[in-house]
């Protein structure tokens, strides 16, 4: 039933929401007398009659940052988490005094819902850019959506910064910035992690027979010999199966000691549960995406303990990340997942660029982003700890972090420089 989820558009919040962190005026703390009351109400009435009058000189103009996330539709849950992170990041920048070179201007977040749909993403990105004076945009979580938003941003000459991992985002683009590890790096990290489990890494690769599964698995297959990893089983399966038992039976027969499962959440849950039922002793690497979300643990429970994956950000990379994590947890009840945490870092990268550009003009912000070079603070909280963009918009220091579910939390275990816990053998 393709596209039927678009019925959600009816309830989707299509109005851009904005947060304004105006400094409370001192006057409001004073006792109100009648004259002040009249001046105030008169001003408000006048503003209503003649249209809002910007209070120049009173505070610097806010800087508009666009945020494109799927807060309805099939990716809604993740999208909502991203919006929460985006708001947190803007609050953090503003509470620290905003953009000083622009007179302490505050960041103003304008959120737009792309409804987990590529067509909507195109129109919403257009609408967001034409309807607002934006300095930069970030979005959209899913690579498929980000690729479209990035095209629109390139044409409109508005910089977009994203945590999406598709390598395609670094091809022929000059307004697109990707501060985190790329998809091709993820595959390599997964293979190297297989060697943590055993020197004689024998990997079974099972992947759903879709574009995502096929392309990712081929990447693994090509890189495996160079990493000294033997692939003993390489098998596509039909996504959305009813029973993982026959597939796991095959994995068992292959004699593998590590299983790479390139699957969406539901299949992965079935696979993990079935491995436990069979009593098969095998290390599982679930990759990234849905696997490194708090929801995965909720669904799989204790069976998730010891499962490995890869992420472009993790909440234990450094102290700044831990602080962000604590605040995010307070606001949403969940730990800061990779995309949420990465998003906070991205906002600080934008703030850094705005500071140096001393201008809200998107072209100048792009220039400043292209010369970004940070190695401390919230902007640099990423695996590797440094951000500097190459000509393709790729962070030259970007690398993925290998993670493992330990005690209902994601712990960084790979590479050595980023490891905050040791590998738990299962």
């Amino acid at each position, binding site marked *: *039933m393709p596209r*039927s*989820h678009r*019925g*959600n558009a009816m*309830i989707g919040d299509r109005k851009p929401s904005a947060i304004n962190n105006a400094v409370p005026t001192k006057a409001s703390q004073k006792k109100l007398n009648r004259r002040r009351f009249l001046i105030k109400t008169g001003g408000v009435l006048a503003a209503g009659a003649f249209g809002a009058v910007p209070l120049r000189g009173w505070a610097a103009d806010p800087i508009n940052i666009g945020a494109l996330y799927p807060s309805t*539709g*099939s*990716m*809604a*849950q993740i999208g909502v988490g991203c919006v929460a992170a985006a708001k947190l990041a803007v609050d953090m920048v503003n509470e620290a005094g905003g953009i000083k070179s622009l007179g302490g201007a505050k960041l103003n977040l304008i959120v737009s819902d792309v409804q987990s749909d590529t067509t909507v993403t195109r129109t919403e990105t257009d609408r967001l850019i034409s309807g607002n004076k934006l300095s930069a945009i970030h979005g959209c979580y899913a690579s498929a959506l980000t690729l479209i938003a990035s095209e629109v941003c390139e044409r409109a000459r508005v910089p977009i910064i994203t945590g999406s991992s598709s390598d395609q985002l670094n091809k022929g683009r000059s307004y697109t910035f990707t501060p985190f590890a790329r998809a091709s790096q993820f595959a390599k990290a997964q293979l190297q992690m297989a060697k943590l489990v055993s020197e004689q890494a024998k990997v079974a690769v*099972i992947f759903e*027979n879709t574009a995502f599964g096929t392309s990712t698995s081929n990447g693994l297959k090509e890189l495996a010999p160079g990493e000294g990893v033997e692939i003993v089983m390489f*098998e*596509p*399966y*039909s996504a*959305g*199966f*009813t*029973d993982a*038992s*026959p*597939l796991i*039976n*095959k994995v068992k*027969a292959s004699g593998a000691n590590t299983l790479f499962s390139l699957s969406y*959440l*539901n299949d992965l*849950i*079935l696979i993990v*549960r*079935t491995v*436990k*039922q*069979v*009593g098969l002793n095998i290390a599982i690497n679930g990759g990234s995406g849905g696997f490194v979300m708090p*929801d995965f643990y*909720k*669904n*799989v*429970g204790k*069976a998730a303990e010891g499962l490995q994956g890869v992420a472009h950000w993790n909440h234990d990379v450094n102290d700044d990340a831990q602080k962000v994590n604590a605040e995010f947890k307070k606001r949403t009840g969940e730990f800061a997942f990779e995309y949420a945490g990465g998003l906070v870092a991205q906002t600080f990268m934008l703030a850094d660029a705005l500071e140096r550009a001393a201008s809200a003009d998107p072209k100048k912000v792009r220039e400043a982003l292209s010369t970004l070079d940070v190695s401390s603070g919230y902007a640099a909280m990423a695996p590797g700890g440094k951000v500097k963009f190459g000509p393709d918009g790729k962070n030259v220091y970007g690398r993925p972090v290998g993670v493992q579910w330990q005690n209902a939390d994601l712990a960084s275990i790979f590479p050595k420089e980023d490891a905050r816990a040791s590998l738990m053998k299962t």
Partner: protein
Amino acid sequence: MWETLAQAVINGLLIGGIYALVSIGVTLIFGVVKIVNFAQGEFVMLGMYISFFLATQFGIDPLVSLVVSMPVLFVAGVLIQHFLIRRVLGPNDMPQIFLTFALSLLLLNLSLMLFSANYRTVHTSYSDEAWHIGGLYIPVAKLIAFAVAMALSGLLWLFLHTTDLGRAMRAASQNRDVAMLMGINPNRVFAVAFGTALALAGAAGSLLMPFYSAYPFVGQVFVLMAFVAVVMGTLGNVMGALVASLMMGIAESLGIQFVGADSGLIVVFALLLLTLAFRPSGLGARRGR
């Protein structure tokens, strides 16, 4: 080799039990009311959500929530038959097809709206348990699901063969017009048939919940197999659908095991084509008719 084969057959048989509950519902509705219910999978989905919410809100075991999901869906079935299906029964098939298809779309999108697209899983003490016998293993949750599915099928068989209402349903299924001439009230029979079919879908949902995730599109995974089983087991034939479902479960499992992990359905459809080639009216067709 022997072990792998035996394990594949066990796996197939266990999942076949779930296919059976869904396909028996479809075939019952087709046999008695003479319409194809495209929304059958969505009722499985509703059964899963009922069990999910009872488990998470009240801590009720999904298997126990069977006693809620089945009656709820039975009543839903009777109401749907009474207020919707009854009005489109006639010589023209199109309104019926559109109605059940619309019902499927409506339920899908409503559940997307209400429950979101997230996967919901229930953990029970037996969810990840399995019995190991020799080199074979039997997952407990699936074994229970299979046993209950077979028991429900058996009860349905008894109902159809020993009660007046059941006989009336069978009569209506064999020849609706003659059955009506014999004084059988079609509306009552249709309502009970539709309700029973939906109750079976609800049961399938509750039985799936300990080992499968609920999400709005989950029904579509099962309904495809159900339609194949209904055709293979002769349209309208409950026993045929049951046997065909079990066969398909085994065929799928053997296909994944010995042909390729993405070839399970290929083997299933090959089996369907072979059946249609040699027994055009299906496995359950009576000879000489």
